[in-house]
């Protein structure tokens, strides 16, 4: 199964998004990398590395970020890691994470999941 990492400035937010995603896909490997080491708001290079390692397998890892330093710090982790099967996806955090979890638990590949997550950018919460 493809691993999923949630990167956020907030430990609570990262853990909450992981929690919601697991509601529909209890088996999906999801790790939260939120806040700094001491729980303060911010993004931690080390926490992101540890979360990727936690859910890494040959199937790969998908990373979702909230904003700003979460995106830039994840980018730096990926550059240092230099593994083609670890990808960051630009999509809404909650919708994207739920989709990723469902698809990962359903045994989809990294490419298939990435494509579905790109679609989540245009998903509407309120129908026209």
């Amino acid at each position, binding site marked *: 199964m493809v691993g999923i990492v949630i990167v956020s400035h907030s430990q609570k937010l990262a853990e909450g998004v992981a929690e919601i995603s697991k509601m529909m896909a209890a088996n999906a490997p999801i790790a939260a990398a939120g806040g*700094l080491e001491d729980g*303060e*708001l*911010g*993004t*931690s*290079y*080390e926490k992101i590395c540890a979360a990727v390692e936690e859910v890494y397998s040959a199937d790969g890892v998908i990373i979702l970020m909230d*904003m*700003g*330093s979460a995106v*830039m*710090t994840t*980018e*730096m982790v990926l550059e240092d890691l230099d593994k083609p099967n670890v990808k960051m996806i630009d999509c809404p955090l909650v919708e994207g994470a739920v989709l990723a979890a469902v698809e990962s638990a359903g045994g989809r590949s990294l490419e298939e999941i990435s494509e579905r997550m790109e679609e989540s950018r245009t998903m509407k919460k309120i129908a026209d």
Partner: protein
Amino acid sequence: MINTKNFLEIISAIAKKIEAEKDFLTELDNEIGDGDHGINLARGFKSVEEKLPTLADKDIGAILKGVGMQLVSTVGGASGPLYGTAFMKAGNVCKGKTELTDEEFVAALDAAINGIKMRGKAVEGEKTMLDALCPAYKVPKDGIDGGKNLIDALTDAVDAAVDGVEYTKTIIATKGRASYLKERSLGHQDPGATSSLYMLQTTLEVLREA
């Protein structure tokens, strides 16, 4: 020539300057950001200062790279990956060197600024660090190419960065957290441009004394 010892002094002086200005930077960031710029940078540079003794016998490239990596690991906000990348990229162009000529120093500054542009996917005029740094690169580059010494060229650079920080008050943020405020970011000076100015000012002060 700028040697390893000068760089260690510059880094240490920057750490002290950031600590001294921590509250002011945070205050600026409270106005148009998430209010953590001073706290984050001070935390980062405090840990850089603690790491400096382990870098003391290294070349300039390794010192700058070490500083950058420490900032990435400890800052926690956007300035971590941004300044972290800047120091690491500057380190790349000084690899193995224990002395820099004026031209090499300016080339390192250029690499640092390009690192910030790359990491932040930003350009001048978006109310960021780059509004202090880009003018501060162009001026000494032209100065040194025209035969000025580094101290005079850097003095001009600091003046240009001061103007750059002033300029950030007149523009709407289109990058970073302040961009969420749109026109309400007008009239406020950018915290990132301000911390960049402090770094340049401190560099100049240390080199003047050297």
